[in-house]
């Protein structure tokens, strides 16, 4: 994966990088800016295409597939809460659309009133009181509320992989805590395979059953749950700093 190929600014983010996630794993990935975390997510989701190499999802090669085709099996929550919802549509309309993912977007009624109770029960999970506000536009919600909603939306239909792209980074500490707890609950409830990128080392240590630290397109730490218990924020930070010193930062 090269940025600015053929120029003096050419940067090879990944070179001979191999990474795989087993079904049911919840991977939390940390690393400094420019270490290739977000690039990796973009290559998986298809927002960027790799120069070489192959990507497989559930045994199927998806390398050449356009982003929207891959999205059929991938749920994604973005750093920007605005990216995962439609601000001018109501909560009900947003959920109705998400509920229909994978179905035909034909000329049947867009909002199915029969599903209202189901949507309410899902929204109750958030404990944000949104279940009584189905008809307000999502744009009037706070960032934390929108991100919680985006998480529900991304996991509404069955998916093979959930991508969490620094999804708590734009939220205040309390909201990010809430969203993170909700994330865990949804992942456990639906037994999802998840790949989470975060700058919050505590989240990285506390959540997930595998921890990966990226640096210059390589993974410098990759521990499963058993080893992760011994992995503390301090030790993580130490490795983080050592790498930075190596690079002369």
């Amino acid at each position: 994966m090269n940025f600015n190929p053929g120029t003096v600014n050419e940067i090879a983010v990944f070179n001979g990088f191999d990474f795989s996630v087993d079904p049911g794993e919840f991977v939390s990935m940390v690393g400094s800016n420019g270490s290739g975390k977000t690039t990796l997510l973009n290559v998986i989701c298809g927002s960027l295409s790799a120069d070489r190499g192959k990507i497989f999802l559930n045994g199927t090669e998806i390398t050449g597939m356009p982003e929207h085709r891959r999205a059929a099996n991938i749920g994604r929550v973005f750093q920007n809460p605005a990216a995962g919802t439609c601000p001018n549509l109501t909560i009900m309309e947003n959920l109705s659309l998400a509920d229909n993912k994978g179905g035909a977007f034909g000329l049947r009624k867009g909002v199915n009133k029969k599903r209202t109770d189901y949507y309410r029960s899902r929204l109750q999970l958030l404990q944000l009181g949104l279940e009584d506000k189905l008809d307000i536009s999502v744009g009037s919600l706070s960032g934390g509320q929108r991100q919680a909603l985006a998480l529900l939306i991304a996991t509404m239909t069955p998916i093979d992989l959930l991508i969490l792209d620094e999804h708590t980074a734009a939220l205040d500490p309390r909201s990010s805590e809430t969203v993170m707890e909700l994330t865990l609950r949804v992942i456990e409830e639906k037994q999802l395979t998840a790949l989470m990128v975060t700058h919050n080392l505590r989240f990285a240590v506390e959540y997930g059953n595998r921890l990966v630290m990226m640096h210059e397109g390589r993974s410098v730490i990759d521990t499963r749950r058993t080893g992760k218990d011994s992995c503390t924020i301090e030790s993580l930070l130490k490795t983080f700093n050592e790498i930075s010193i190596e690079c002369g930062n």
Partner: protein
Amino acid sequence: MSLTLFSGLVEVVLREGFIYGIMAMGVYITYKILDFPDLSVDGTFPLGACIAALLITAGADPWLACLVAFAAGACAGCVTGVLHVKLGITDLLSGILVMTAMWSVNLILTGGSAIKQFFNRDTIFNSGPVLLLPEGLYPHRQLIMVTLIALAVKYALDWYLSTKNGLLLRASGDNSQYVVNLARDPGSMKILGLAVGNGCTALAGCILAQLNQNADINSGKGMVVMALASVIIGISVFRRLNFFRFVTMAILGSILYKACLMAALQLGLPNSYLKLLMAVLLTAAIVSEKVNRKGGKHVAKQW
């Protein structure tokens, strides 16, 4: 001003307002829902007129002409969409390209003449259902017909926008990444929206041509400006009432806009100043919209 003259003027305003309102509803879809400033409208409006002239002169059913006009406009809209979505040409330029191309298409349809007349032929205003009107209403048949057609288009669009597909169209204008996340191609939705918008525009052109019993290939000049002004005026004036849907506001805006033009003409504005006034009105509408939006809180965008 005598009462008969005044009521006559009102009828003209309403008649024209409804006809151009059909176009305004289409432009609402491209401009407001998809956020696409679609200039191809200047070419697809006369396209509908030329198709009316061609088919009606050939003896075709005038209602069939309306359907064909809508379909042809939709095709032209698809071209705009494909130029933009598939070939990566900017939205404005895609519209200009189609608008320019339409000039030739329209000339080919009329056989090379700028105005093609079709007097004494069957149109929707002198044949078919309109003959069922009671005698007393017959003098107002033009207004009645355009009102019914505009309402039919309005309800059709209202219904479409409430379907799953319509919801997806609204989502693609709102947040195209959301549509990608739903495993759908937002580009295709954009093309579809442009098709519907230009279909409505060509339908409006077709109806105006049947009313005038001639097709004027120059009739498209200023349509973008007129339609945008109608949509923006309609929404800024009637949104407060919180009663109408946006599609309805587009029609009402069109009527209001026509009333403004008519008032200016009645007050003695020379005809040559008309396009200047249209530009000024649109500028004023956009500026007032911006002022309104400042400080205003987020209002739910219904449809």
